[in-house]
């Protein structure tokens, strides 16, 4: 039990609770199938902004979503991963997961949330694929060794090769799917490959939404773009939508002014930490990582990593996690303003780091960084 201030009340049940539910239900069911109109328009404007479109697009987004009958079918395959992106997906707010599932999309197959199981689940997948015209979302990487990952006795790689050619578009969501992520980190024990590598031989290109996990807003952005313009958004050379992945975290970070002024946190639990100084010296990978975290924020706008106090560990980067580990090791090759260094533009910083990390910081670098008993709080 916690300290003397605990205000937890012991709760004794009585049967009247049953009656109370029935009486109280009106208050609790706020027509959950309904998208509240005002909220919905807010969502549309926010989405337009996130997609880099003008406010004028908000009504068009509203129209695309509400008149898209039938709802856009989605087949969501969960492969070698931890289902974290599904978990993130069902935590979506504005639009909420309920709205996404019931009003915007038609999720034909997702083995975490679907009601059917076994044979019937397989049948759902087959029906959706036969009908075609669906967006294929792939969460997780594919083991290249037969038997390392199966669903209904079929290798995951074979399933993808069967389903992908029938899809309108293929979206790889999360780092496992885009670049094999954590389970594919050195030494890549199950020989994982990314969606892009799996589909290359079939001549199928895909959208990459890296992130560990990737936020559902990014997926919604891609789908809406498709509904609005009947095409996929502009992609960079790594298959990432430019509207989300053009800028580095560092370019958009609230703590950037501290970086420029040379005000850094040197260890956790210090006054500099309380003042919200720049986390670069704590290993922040913001200068190296491209992504929209500071602008989209996470979990109903509650926060995001650096705002909460954590150095970015670079989980949206296409080389995550080996290029970022050790996570608390300071990035090499950044000139720090305020320390006699040259004032680097964010762009330049990003490029320098890209080159530095291309060499690959692996287990050896981790060993060097940790040797000598560095302070737990810093570098």
């Amino acid at each position, binding site marked *: *039990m*916690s300290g003397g*201030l*605990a*205000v937890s*009340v*012991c*709760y004794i049940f009585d049967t009247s609770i*049953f009656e109370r*539910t029935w009486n109280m*239900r009106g208050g609790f*069911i706020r*027509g959950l*199938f*309904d998208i509240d109109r005002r909220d919905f328009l807010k969502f549309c404007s926010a989405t337009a902004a996130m997609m880099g479109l003008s406010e004028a697009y908000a009504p068009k987004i509203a129209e695309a979503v509400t008149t898209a*009958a*039938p709802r856009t079918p989605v087949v969501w395959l969960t492969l070698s991963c931890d*289902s974290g*992106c*599904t978990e993130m997906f*069902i935590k979506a707010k504005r639009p*909420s997961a*309920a709205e996404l599932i019931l009003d915007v999309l038609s999720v*034909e197959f997702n083995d*975490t949330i*679907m*009601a*059917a*199981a076994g044979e019937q*689940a397989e049948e759902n997948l087959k029906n959706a694929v036969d009908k075609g015209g669906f967006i294929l979302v792939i969460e997780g990487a594919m083991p290249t*060794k*037969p*038997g*390392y*990952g199966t669903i209904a*006795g079929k290798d995951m790689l074979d399933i993808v090769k069967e389903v992908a050619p029938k899809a309108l578009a293929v979206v790889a969501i999360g780092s496992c799917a885009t670049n094999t992520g*954590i*389970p594919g*980190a*050195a*030494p890549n*024990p*199950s020989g994982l490959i990314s969606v892009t590598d799996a589909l290359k031989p079939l001549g199928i290109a895909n959208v990459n939404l890296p992130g560990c996990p990737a936020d559902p807003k990014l997926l919604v952005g891609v789908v809406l773009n498709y509904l609005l313009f009947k095409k996929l958004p502009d992609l960079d050379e790594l298959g990432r939508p430019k509207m989300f992945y053009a800028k580095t975290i560092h370019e958009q970070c609230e703590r950037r002014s501290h970086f420029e002024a040379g005000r850094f946190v040197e260890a956790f*639990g210090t006054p500099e*930490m309380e003042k919200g100084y720049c986390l670069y010296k704590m290993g922040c990978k913001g200068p190296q990582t491209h992504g929209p975290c500071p602008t989209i924020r*996470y979990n*109903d706008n509650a*926060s*995001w*990593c650096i*705002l*909460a*106090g954590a150095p970015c*560990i670079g989980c949206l980067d296409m080389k995550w996690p080996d290029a970022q580990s050790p996570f608390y090791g300071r990035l090499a090759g950044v000139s720090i303003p305020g320390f006699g260094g040259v004032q680097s533009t964010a762009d330049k910083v990003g490029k320098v780091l890209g080159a530095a990390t291309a060499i690959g910081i692996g287990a050896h670098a*981790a*060993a060097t960084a*940790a*040797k000598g008993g*560095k302070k737990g*709080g810093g570098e």
Partner: protein
Amino acid sequence: MARLVIDPITRIEGHLKLDVEIEGGKVKDAWTSGTLFRGFELILKGRDPRDAWQITQRVCGVCPTSHAHTSTMGLEDSFKVTPPENAVILRNLIEGCQFLHSHILWFYHLNALDYVDVVSALSAKTTDPALVAVQGKLKTFVDSGQLGPFANAYWGHPAYKLPPEVNLLAVSHYLQALEMQAEAAAASAVWGGRMPMTMTSPPGGVNCMVDLDLIAQFLFRLKKVQAFIDNVMVPDTLAIAPFYLDWAGIGKGHANFLSWGVFTDPKSRDPYKSLLPRGAVYASEGLTAQKVGPEMVTEDTTRGWYKDGPAVNPAQGVTDPEYTSYDTNAKYTWAKSPRLNGKPMEVGALARMLVAYTSGQPTAQSLINGTLTALGVGGKPEVLLSVLGRIAARTLEAKMVADEMIGWTTALAANLGAGNSKLFEQYEIPDKSSGIGLWEAPRGALGHWNEIDGHVLKNYQMVVPTTWNVCPRDEKGVRGPIEEALIGTPVHDAKQPLEILRVVHSFDPCLACTVHVIDPDTNEVRKFRVS
């Protein structure tokens, strides 16, 4: 005798296959098999120890926070550092959100569809305008012909017992619960930056920003979730249970229960004084709690795809994978078989609540006794050893945790007010050391064993909740907990094995974390098909 294979089992995290033998309308024997392998222990080797808590979070997208905390506690054991009181409180709050989110999600989205017939809700007679609206929307949804996640389930199965009106009410709560599990996650993001994959619980303490404004934001979100648990989830459990009382006699299993304890007492740090304390209950020897320790754990590999060898403690754990073929008479899964003093143990909310109850934890006692009385089985806690008991335990635990979280938040605010804002303790990473973290994920007992050499990780072993529950037989042929719990389960129609799903779902299996190391170089893996 009919042989039935269900693959994939859905509404769990990860990939599980189940093989059962049915005779005379009942399950006669069962085999559970994890069908996906990753390899976290290999990935961790040679890395900075401080990266482990971030990497191991990615073992499981449903309980990442629990892995983070277990890993961090094991590293603190290695580093010989004790986190400050405020850090313990904040970790309890972040972990608490994880429990609330996970239990709500499990109750309404992973488990409820085994009991709630969505199609039957269409024929509910109601004049309540809110319910009429939900029903209308549901009808439009069904009429559109795009049933999405509700398509092709076992709707209309005779084992669905709720009247249409209760089904309709439950469907409306299914949707509301989607919002509430997201709200619980958002509350934890106030401290952790995001959820899943919390960012602020490294060894030494916490590195989140803390002030009264953030405390208010957190409380605002937490209170919404608490109100939902009190006013919807608890009443739903009590409303639905009377229709399924026969499930208090199904799925008992071995009835051995283990809890490492979770929600550390910020003052004493004694795991036997945690909100949900440490202990084991062997029901066949009576409902009493016994002390337990990590030295009692062994892992047996007789029936998993690993080289045979003696069962050893995870601290000496070796993992030598060797895929042969899927053969229920020999090896049939990637899960090892963990044992406590040689016994298979069930872990999860029921195990924790029983250990708390039998340890005399007052809140657990009043909640459980009150529920038993409300359901007309006062004074008979043994009915909890069942599918229905597992469901009730999760609901009651959610209530207990939510209430306690309000208390911890108040304590945090009081500490800040009294000038104690310490959040972090400095430390050095030792050259050589080893440590153990023992804690609980929503799904049950979780242990991380680390070994450090030359300031980097030399070895890392995890014994995770679902491995305890979903493990295969051991060398003595004793079944794993889920396998055992399935024995005797009635099956009305082998083509629609709804009853089997109920037993499996009651354990909330999460296969993402069961499968451990596989060495890519050792052997060829053959594909299997089961007829």
